[in-house]
């Protein structure tokens, strides 16, 4: 167990990586064990509204009389899973598109990149709204699907440029001479070599997913029965928390999103720093 912990500890390189890991662990713990930690049940409307932070309500209550702290804790779970799952879906699509485009080249690359350019034009948030109104019901799963299927664009481009530089290197020629098939070269040879870049991008994409989920819920397209940082912020804005000087309802969701993503970005940059140290090129 000790050795495994040690290995995992230096898997996150540099001061940045370690700091990021600590932040990430903090949120994971809350996401997994939130229900036992939260002082009150989810969406429990039982208190007076607009109570400032007090002993019984560390973060006060909102306009409906819900305890903001427990809402934040339950929100962590949604935002955490949206971030992780949407991030994974995006990575899978982004990496496949990136590698295929980078490796195959020719008209495949051209068409894929044209699609990427096109989707970069249309604001992703607007596209997500369209997709949101297209899917039958707006559960958390459909949010994840929507975000996942639309935010792989930047990643696709970054992986493609990385694959193109890998394609020139010797081991790819060697692999081809040995007679390995294209997809074998791509996924058995090139993929392991660009893993640090993939990890760095995964981290970036996860933050974008969390932000996109917050955006969607802010625009009222999140799942109302479920709570996430985005829905808390949306209700805070819609119910005029500013008028009530309810800073305890506005600040926490924004700060939580920021810290959560901050942790991820630190890890990403830690990996990149280590990667750049031994490969010498700015991949992100």
């Amino acid at each position: 167990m000790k050795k495994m912990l040690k290995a995992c500890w230096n898997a996150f390189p540099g001061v940045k990586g370690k700091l990021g890991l600590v932040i990430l662990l903090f949120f994971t713990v809350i996401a997994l064990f939130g229900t036992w930690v939260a002082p009150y049940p989810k969406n429990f409307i039982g208190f007076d509204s607009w109570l400032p932070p007090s002993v019984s309500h560390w973060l006060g209550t909102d306009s409906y009389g819900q305890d903001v702290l427990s809402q934040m804790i339950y929100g962590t779970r949604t935002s955490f899973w949206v971030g992780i799952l949407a991030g994974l879906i995006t990575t899978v699509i982004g990496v496949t598109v990136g590698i295929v485009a980078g490796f195959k080249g020719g008209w495949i690359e051209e068409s894929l990149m044209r699609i990427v350019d096109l989707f970069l034009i249309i604001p992703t948030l607007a596209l997500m709204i369209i997709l949101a109104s297209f899917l039958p019901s707006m559960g958390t799963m459909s949010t994840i699907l929507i975000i996942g299927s639309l935010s792989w664009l930047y990643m696709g481009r970054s992986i493609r440029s990385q694959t193109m530089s890998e394609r020139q290197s010797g081991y790819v020629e060697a692999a081809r001479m040995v007679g390995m098939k294209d997809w074998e070269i791509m996924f058995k040879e090139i993929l392991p070599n660009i893993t640090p870049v993939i990890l760095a991008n995964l981290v970036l994409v996860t933050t974008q997913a969390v932000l996109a989920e917050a955006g969607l819920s802010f625009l009222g397209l999140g799942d109302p029965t479920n709570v996430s940082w985005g829905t808390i912020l949306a209700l805070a804005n819609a119910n005029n928390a500013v008028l009530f000087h309810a800073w305890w309802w506005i600040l926490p969701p924004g700060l939580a999103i920021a810290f959560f993503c901050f942790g991820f970005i630190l890890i990403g940059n830690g990996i990149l720093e280590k990667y750049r140290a031994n490969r010498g090129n700015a991949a992100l």
Partner: protein
Amino acid sequence: MKWGSRKTSVMLFSALVVLVGVLNGCSNSSSSSQSGTNGQTDTASSSKPASKGDTVVYHLGETVNPEQVTNFNPFLATGNWSPFFDYVFDPLYYFNPVKGELVPRLADSEGSWSEDNKTYTVKLNMEAKWQDGTPLTIDDVLYSFNTLKDYKVLDRYQLWGEGRLQEVTAQGSDTVVFKLSNTFPSLPFYLTTVYIVPKHQFEKEDPSQFLNKQPIGTGPFKFKSINESAIVLDKNADYFLGAPNIDQLFVDRFNNSSTLTLALEKGDVQGSTGTVAMPSVPKLLENPVNKLQVYPGLNTFSVIMNNEKPGLKDSAVRRAIQLAIDRKSLIEKGESNGVFPANPGFLSSVFSDMADTGLIDNAAFAYNVNEATKLLESDGYKKNSKGIYEKDGKKLSFTYHMAANAPAQNKEGAMITEWLKNIGVETTVKLVTWPELTKLLMSGDYELLQNGLQTPPDPQAQLEIFHSKMTAPTGENTPGLNYMRFRDPEVDQWLDQASSADAATRKELYQKVQARISEQAPVAVMYNVGGHIPYRTDQFTNYNEDLPVTSALSLMQVKKK
């Protein structure tokens, strides 16, 4: 004053180019022109460059989207902001929702029915003049009504529908005669929905496409100009019911209610016609200067149930659902007391004389969880392992549709679904856009759907929602608002009698209809949405509380303190 859209956009680009240059110098320029007024209660609205002389300006705040100011044509239902017409134009009568009665505007006095109740004559107040100086003529009135006959699209309330208006003629130069093909006692209410337009301006245009960017009305305020932040109206000095005291009426445009509420709190705006984020109302009222006028309305929010769907067929289940909803906390928590308790018999308390107010706070329909569960069990439902009621294999599990992008609505939906779970009724929430909600209601492709049912200002029309002629089997689009697929031959019979009966018998028939509705509970009512008008009393007084305080007739009398 040319409507400055093209000029403004050109100006904007040059201005924003200047922005790049002046941005760093901005801090001093902004402080010089803007005396740093801070939050809470402050006196005059922030001192913009001094307006000419001491013109008295009343700022009214409103959520008006850019697409809502593309036309000022009273005939059109879309692309315009309807309260605008109340300020600039005049209908024959004005329906006062506070008292639930008709106030004569262009009409001189109350109209009179013929013996066979099939013709209604209205004498006009010929003092009225168009804002461009030309006097009002009987032809203007005839033109305004005949246009609805010629252009089917514009007759939203089907004044010329079958069994209603047959002909509108002039009698002399100051009296209008409405000939009906059948008895239609609510005609006066319907006359309030038609604004009289200047024939000499409209006849040159196609009324169903005319954008009327330079509106000319007879109303108390004249249109002056419009920009991205406000619609500017000047007072109509020679308005025939007396000139308004204020010189200018600014309708400040916001695109969300939060910013509007902040402006109200800060004093930039003196009042609003009602779209304020309800939960912030209590905070507004903490400031003694702010008042909130509340009156019942024509929109009853309820959980609409498709009475043909399995489970929802039995009235016991529907009654149980009605009892499971804690209407009091919906009103307090959800809408912060900005709305009225709804009538389980559905008729709004706006029609105070007709509505059976006894039903509203009748304990039989109040929030009562064990009564609801008792009802379900007595009807043969038993709780299954997961705590959901079931009868011969069919569990009470329904889809619950709600409107997207309505945080307050969604919050209340979450509360209701929680309460339904407490009485063993399972729901899966589905969020859809507004037009889709209507489509689902019409086609019946829903089980539970939370939405408002809005009707014209006519008790008959409001109760006819439950008439079988207004519905169609699930799968077909309903002709009327009976989305619930509710059929009750007796209710049909009572309503048909009432449509041509005199006032007394109509009241009695309506009582019976309301009793039956509350018993059958085709819908589970939530609350009645009427007016909730916040207004400040620190700079202006003399609001007329018997009318909506920010309506035209009240704003006329408002004076600067």
